[in-house]
C-alpha cells in the first residue's frame, strides 16, 4: 500500500517529466497519469467485487500499478477521454491475465510482474496507436500508428526474451541462479544478508 502510493506519486516524474520541460505536454501527461491510475485501481477492485464479492487492497494496488503501466506509453499522446479508456482497460485486461491466464499457463509469478507489467505495457502500447490525438503531440491514432506500435512491441519482446535468456543461462551455468533449496526455504534474509526483518 505504501509502496503503491509512492510509485503513483513518483510516476508523475516518470511521465510528466518525460516531456523534458514544464510545458503543456507535461501538464497533459500529469492529467492522463492521474486518471488512468485512479480508474485502473477502481475497475480492478470492482471486478473483484463482482466476481468474488470482496474488493481487496492488493486488487486496488495491482489495478493502480496496471493503470500507471498502461498510461505510460500513452501519457504524452492521448487526451482525458483516452486516459479513461486506458484506465478501464488497465483494470480489466491485466486482471484477467493475473486471474485466468496465470492459472491456465501455470507460470510462476508470485508478484504478478508479467500479468501487470508485460500485459499492461503491451495493452498501453497498442492503445496509444488507437487513441492518440493529433492536437496533443502531433500523432493521430489509426492504422499507420497502430502498425508502428505493434512493430515496437515485437522488437521489445524479442530483445528482452533473447537477451535475458542468453544472460540468465550463462549465469546459471557459471555461478548459478537459485540458492540451495534449504537456504530458499529458510529465507534469503538470514542466509544471504545476515539480517532478519521480523523476529517475532
Amino acid at each position, binding site marked *: 500500500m*505504501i509502496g503503491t502510493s509512492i510509485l503513483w506519486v*513518483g510516476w508523475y*516524474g516518470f511521465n510528466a517529466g*518525460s516531456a523534458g520541460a514544464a510545458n503543456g505536454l507535461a501538464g497533459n501527461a500529469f492529467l492522463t497519469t492521474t486518471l488512468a491510475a485512479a480508474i485502473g485501481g477502481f475497475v480492478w477492485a470492482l471486478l473483484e467485487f463482482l466476481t468474488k464479492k470482496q474488493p481487496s487492497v492488493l486488487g486496488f494496488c495491482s489495478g493502480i500499478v496496471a493503470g500507471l503501466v498502461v498510461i505510460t506509453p500513452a501519457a504524452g499522446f492521448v487526451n482525458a477521454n483516452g486516459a479513461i479508456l486506458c484506465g478501464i482497460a488497465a483494470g480489466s485486461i491485466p486482471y484477467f491475465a493475473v486471474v485466468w491466464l496465470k492459472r491456465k499457463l501455470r507460470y510462476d509469478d508470485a508478484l504478478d510482474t508479467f500479468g501487470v507489467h*508485460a500485459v499492461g505495457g503491451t495493452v498501453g502500447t497498442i492503445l496509444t496507436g488507437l487513441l492518440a490525438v493529433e492536437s496533443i503531440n502531433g500523432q493521430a491514432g489509426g492504422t499507420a500508428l497502430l502498425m508502428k506500435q505493434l512493430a515496437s512491441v515485437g522488437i521489445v519482446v524479442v530483445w528482452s*526474451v533473447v537477451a*535475458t535468456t542468453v544472460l540468465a543461462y*550463462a549465469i546459471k551455468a557459471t555461478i548459478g541462479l537459485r540458492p540451495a533449496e534449504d537456504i530458499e526455504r529458510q529465507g*534469503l534474509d538470514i542466509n544471504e544478508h545476515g539480517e532478519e526483518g521480523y523476529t517475532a
Partner: protein
Amino acid sequence: MKKNNLTMLSAFALLAATAGPALAEEVPAINSGDTAWMMTSTALVLFMTLPGLALFYGGLVRRKNVLSVLAQCLGIAGLATLMWWAFGYSLSFSGEGKFIGDLGAVFFKGLYGPEGSDIAFSSKLAGVPDSVFAMFQLTFAIITPALIVGAIAERMKYTALMTFVATWSGAAASSAKPSAPSTLPAAWWYTCPPGTRPWCWPSFSARASAMAANPCLRTAWCCV
C-alpha cells in the same frame, strides 16, 4: 527626475534588446522553470525505486525475504549509477549512431561543457543543463532493472542477480540509443515518451529470467 529615470530605463531596455540576442548565441540560457521541473521529476523517479518499488515488492513477499528485496533494490541503484557514470550515459546519448552511442562521454566527460563555460546544455533538452538530463535518465536506468526483481524475488542468489543486472543493463545501454522519430526506431520512440522507452523491456525480461531460474515451473508457451 522622473523623466530621467524613464530615459535611463529606456536606455537599459535598448541595451538589453541589442545585447540579448548576441549573448544568447554564445551561451544558451537556462530555463529555470524547465530545469526546476526536471530536477523535481528526477527526484520523483528515484523515489519510485527507493523506497517505492522496494516497499511494493517487499510487501508482497514472505517475511523471511523482505530484506533481500530491499537489498536487491539498493544494490541495483548503486550498480546502475556506477555503470551510468562509467559508460552507460555515453553509450546511450553520445555520438550520432542510430542504435548505439559512442564512448565520447565516458566517465561523464564533457558534462561540464566546452571550454570557457560552466555548464553544458543538452541538445535534446533546450534550457536544461546536461547534468540534470544525465541524472534524470539515470533514474530510469535504475528503475528499469529494479523492476526485474519482481519476477525473481525469493528465488535468486544475490550475486547472480547483481551479475545479471550488470550484463543486462550493459546490453540495454549499448542498444538503446534514442533516435529521431523518422527511422526504424521510430516505433520505439512512439511507444513511450522520450526516455521512458525501455520501460516495456524489463517485464518480458522478468518473465524470461524467472523461467530460467525456475525450470520446474516453466510455462507451456516457452519451452526452452
